[in-house]
């Protein structure tokens, strides 16, 4: 079909990534192809359905036009086209996990052995307090319908849910976060290099690091720095520690809660998170900002890369994005986008003038542009102009909340 990009992105293998046989691989590829089909071919029809049918039906029964994303959802939920879209999208999500889980169950003992062996070779620390309890917002529902969530353990030294996340999130993102699932970390690193080229952090903390996808790029960019990844699931940090070593890096990982970590005051120059905040809660998010402020050295930066607030988009886009809240087990997804994050950062101790929202261009897009232009600097320049001009850049950039702790405290 003309105009539809053929997505043949492939994840790059590493020692702890679960291996697949022919049919497992095909089932996984099917789930990725299905997501691609839904986004490129079925989703665009929702706009037509809304304008030509659902909004009119809503007006007929309610006696008024839909006014916000909730009205739009109410209007659309009665429409059969939307019901198909929504149901197929949910099934696609379930098939991702189903197709990966089968391969993991088959090889779990080998995966655990590989992780143990790699971790043993790392010169970096792996801290797991067996008494640690993950917070309720991370365990009450299995976020994005991933069976077992981030913290379930089925056997000793288990890494099953982490392996599931590593492979599953690649399929979920259809490869758009890069062959190592690390595009957010890479993009923030590029952003730092471009905007604060003299900033050379010596201690870096990645909060909500999951399996360390975005943590590793900081170690690559700042090889002399001590880099720490922190998360609430023991399987995640175990797998992350081994995965980093498998990719040739010694990165420290810690089991802990970003609301209250075990680190000392003013012990980091740079604290980052990538798609963490929307998986926390109304009470946890402000605590995380406060914890960032406590942990930062004067002059240090906090950077949270997540998705844009609702104020940056129209009602229909809000409705589309908010479907994750109701149909994909993302309880804080919608509420997080309503929060005034700049005010929260200010309450946590940052000066208002030192907190901004910005867009970090996606590293994989820059690489693609660079390959075309044959000149990395030219590609970066082009991208900067493009991203500065837009309100937000879906598919082109990550939304980043940046706070700098004042060099001298008032």
């Amino acid at each position, binding site marked *: *079909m003309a105009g*539809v990009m*053929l*997505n*043949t992105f*492939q994840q790059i293998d590493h020692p702890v990534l679960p291996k697949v*046989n*022919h*049919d497992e691989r*095909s*089932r996984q*590829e*099917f*789930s990725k*192809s*299905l997501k691609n*089909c839904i986004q490129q*071919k*079925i989703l665009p*029809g929702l706009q*037509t*359905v809304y304008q*030509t049918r659902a909004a009119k039906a809503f007006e007929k029964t309610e006696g008024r036009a839909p006014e916000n994303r909730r009205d739009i959802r109410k209007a659309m939920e009665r429409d059969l*086209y939307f*019901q*198909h*879209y929504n*149901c*197929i999208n*949910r*099934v*696609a999500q*379930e*098939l991702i*996990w*189903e*197709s990966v*889980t089968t391969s*993991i*169950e*088959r090889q*779990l*003992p080998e995966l655990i052995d590989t992780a143990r062996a790699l971790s043993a070779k790392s010169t970096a620390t792996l801290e797991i307090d067996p008494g640690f309890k993950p917070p309720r917002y991370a365990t*009450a*529902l*299995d976020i994005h*319908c*991933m*069976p*077992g*969530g981030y913290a*379930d353990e*089925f*056997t000793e030294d*288990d890494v*099953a*849910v982490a392996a*599931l996340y590593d492979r599953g999130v690649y399929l979920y993102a259809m490869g758009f976060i890069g062959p190592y699932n690390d595009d957010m970390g890479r993009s923030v690193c590029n952003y730092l290099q471009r905007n604060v080229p003299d900033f050379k952090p010596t201690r870096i903390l990645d909060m909500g690091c999951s399996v360390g996808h975005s943590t590793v790029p900081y170690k690559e960019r700042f090889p002399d720095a001590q880099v720490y990844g922190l998360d609430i699931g023991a399987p995640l940090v175990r797998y992350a520690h081994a995965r980093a070593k498998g990719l040739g890096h010694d990165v420290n990982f810690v089991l802990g809660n970003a609301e209250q970590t075990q680190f000392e005051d003013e012990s980091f120059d740079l604290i980052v998170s990538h798609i963490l905040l929307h998986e926390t809660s109304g009470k946890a998010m402000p605590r995380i900002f406060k914890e960032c402020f406590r942990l930062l050295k004067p002059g240090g930066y906090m950077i949270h890369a997540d998705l844009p607030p609702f104020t940056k988009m129209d009602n229909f886009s809000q409705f589309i994005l908010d479907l994750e809240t*109701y149909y994909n*087990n993302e309880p804080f997804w919608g509420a997080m986008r309503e929060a005034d994050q700049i005010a929260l950062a200010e309450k946590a101790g940052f000066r208002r003038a030192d907190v901004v929202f910005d867009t970090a261009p996606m590293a994989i897009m820059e690489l693609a542009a660079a390959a075309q232009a044959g000149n990395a600097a030219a590609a970066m320049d082009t991208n900067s102009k493009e991203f500065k001009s837009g309100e937000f850049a879906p598919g082109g950039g990550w939304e980043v909340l940046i706070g700098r702790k004042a060099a001298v405290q008032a």
Partner: protein
Amino acid sequence: MSAEVKVRRDARGKRPQFYDDPANDTLMSMVMVLASELCVTRDRLDTIERIADEKNLILSREIDTFELDQEALAEREQRRQDFMDRLFYLLRKDISELKEQDTGERYTQTLDDIAKN
């Protein structure tokens, strides 16, 4: 193959109902699983054909470790997307009717019109 450790397969959190009749939710999931298996089978045949072409030799171990080149990846993805176009032809039809304002009323009018004129 029986695995020693069973991992969790169903996500915590009540599954939403998408259709007025919940039977349709179950049926849609079954249809999509069947669709997936059909693709898997086609992929497997494709692999067999490619291996046979290359080596005139078919071994199941080779099938599981066969690496696809970029051209093959693109061919497969095109085939899957074509298949999904067929799978969701009714959704395409729905949008086409909306865009062309093709309604039941217009259909009846056409019948009347053709009967009379």
